[in-house]
């Protein structure tokens, strides 16, 4: 039998890898994927706790998170395409004009 803490540790590792991706990568699409990985780590934690409490509310939460993630990705990728159209790049350093 697997202890709950193993799942928590796995989720913490995935979350941190996602956070690292946001910090060290400069490509907007990869950053966005890293954010999805962070959301995924949160979801894993929800399902784990739902299981250990024998409740369903955690699973329902994950269902909503997946729906929201789909909406967010649709809008986010649309914005990335719009930015690419004008700048021909999705490197977040090259894209930045607004600063100073």
């Amino acid at each position: 039998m697997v202890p709950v803490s193993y799942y928590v540790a796995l989720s913490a590792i995935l979350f941190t890898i996602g956070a690292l991706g946001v910090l060290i990568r400069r490509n907007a699409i990869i950053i966005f994927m890293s954010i999805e990985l962070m959301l995924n780590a949160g979801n894993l934690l929800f399902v784990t706790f739902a299981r250990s409490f024998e409740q369903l509310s955690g699973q329902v939460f994950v269902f909503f998170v997946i729906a929201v993630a789909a909406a967010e990705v649709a809008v986010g990728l649309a914005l990335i395409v719009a930015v690419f159209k004008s700048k021909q790049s999705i490197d977040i350093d090259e894209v930045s004009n607004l600063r100073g």
Partner: protein
Amino acid sequence: MFLTLLPEITLVVLAFVVLTTDLALDRQSRAFLPYLTAAGMLLAVIFTIVFALPGDKPQLIFGGMLRHDWLTFVFRLVFLFGALATVLFSAGWERVARRGEYYVLIITSTLGMMLMGASADLVMLFLAIETTSIPLYILAGFITEDDKSTESGFKYLLFGAMTTAIMLYGFSMLYGFSGSTNLYWIAGALMSGELPFISMMGTVILVMAGFAFKVSMVPFHFWAPDVYEGSPTPIAGFLSTASKAAGFAVIIRVLLTAFPLEAFGGVDWTMMMAIAAALTMSVGNLIALAQTNIKRLLAYSSVAHAGYILMGIAAASELGGLSVVFYIIVYLVTNLAAFGVVAVAERTLGSNDLEAYDGLSRRSPALALVLLISLLSLAGVPPMGGFIAKVLVFAAAVEANMVWLAVVGILNAIVGLYYYLIVLKRVYLFRSEEEDKPVPIPRPSAVALTVCLIAILVFGTIIAPWFDYSGIAAGALF
């Protein structure tokens, strides 16, 4: 039960009506869309006051998803007012005035804010925050021909999605510690359990990341100036007022109910919030000094104002809650007026540089007067509303034995006064070569600006009723 949700239902219906009307009308008659939207929102305001008045006892409705109390009620009106003013400013802003989708996005974002103010469950809270944010990402990047606009939408989205992910992780830990997603249940579980201090504080920090982003609290403020500068000006005003107010509505409810001070032994989140408040106002005010673009200046000034409001939250008392609600109401009308002036001036001046504002008082005395009153109110000069609001948050800090915080606040208010006066000096004392060209004010903007102006003066002179209402609203938390 459905009556209490009537304002929200009205907004959903309004969104569909606007969307289909947009399809049916030709380009010319689409100028009618902002008025349709404004009328629908006015209807929602009336429904809020007539049908959705909370009773003496706060109640949890829709399976514990929402809490129907006076705080919910007051914030509903705040958001609706902010949205109404934004729609009216947009009507005079040619690039968006006739786009039906634009109004649909404002309506759904307002719907999200109203749910944020009422949420009593993490599921509902998460969805409400996203329903508020996703339309705002689109609105910030709405003008696809303008590189700056798409870029600001893109930045806003990346920052927003990242902080949301961090917040969600905090929510999942909170669920793990308490076994429930309802804020009021979580409070009970945290009080009884003996959680180690580090887990409690870690969860507070993770959860706060998402909220701090919405209110542009340091260190989550980087996006604000860039996004405000690039997005359509009426939307910048909306972001800095209604969206920020929604963030604060969530912060006071979550911190005071889900993380009761008794659950922490000794050191709790008030100290963290006090430090965040001091940093936020200092950073905002100091960087604002160096700005040469009025939208960026107002962006940093709105960061600073988030700091003042956080003082009231750090106090974690009834006076603190009251001062937060009062400050948000005053700040909403004041900053809407300031951004409204910028939106109107931008049409003729064609620029947002401070230099373009030289001699504005000769080109449009009315516009200059609104800018004068709103900036003085932001600076906290009596008899404007901003003065009373500042006095209240300082009093809350002193009452909570945080005299140092009040001192930092007063020093910051002086710095703030300086850069607001620099803008006013340009408007009133400087001359420019184009003084003979007047700056016309579109009628819908004039209406919204007048209402804001009256509100600023009324909040500053007839204080007692607003003070009482804020007290009742904040009372729902204790």
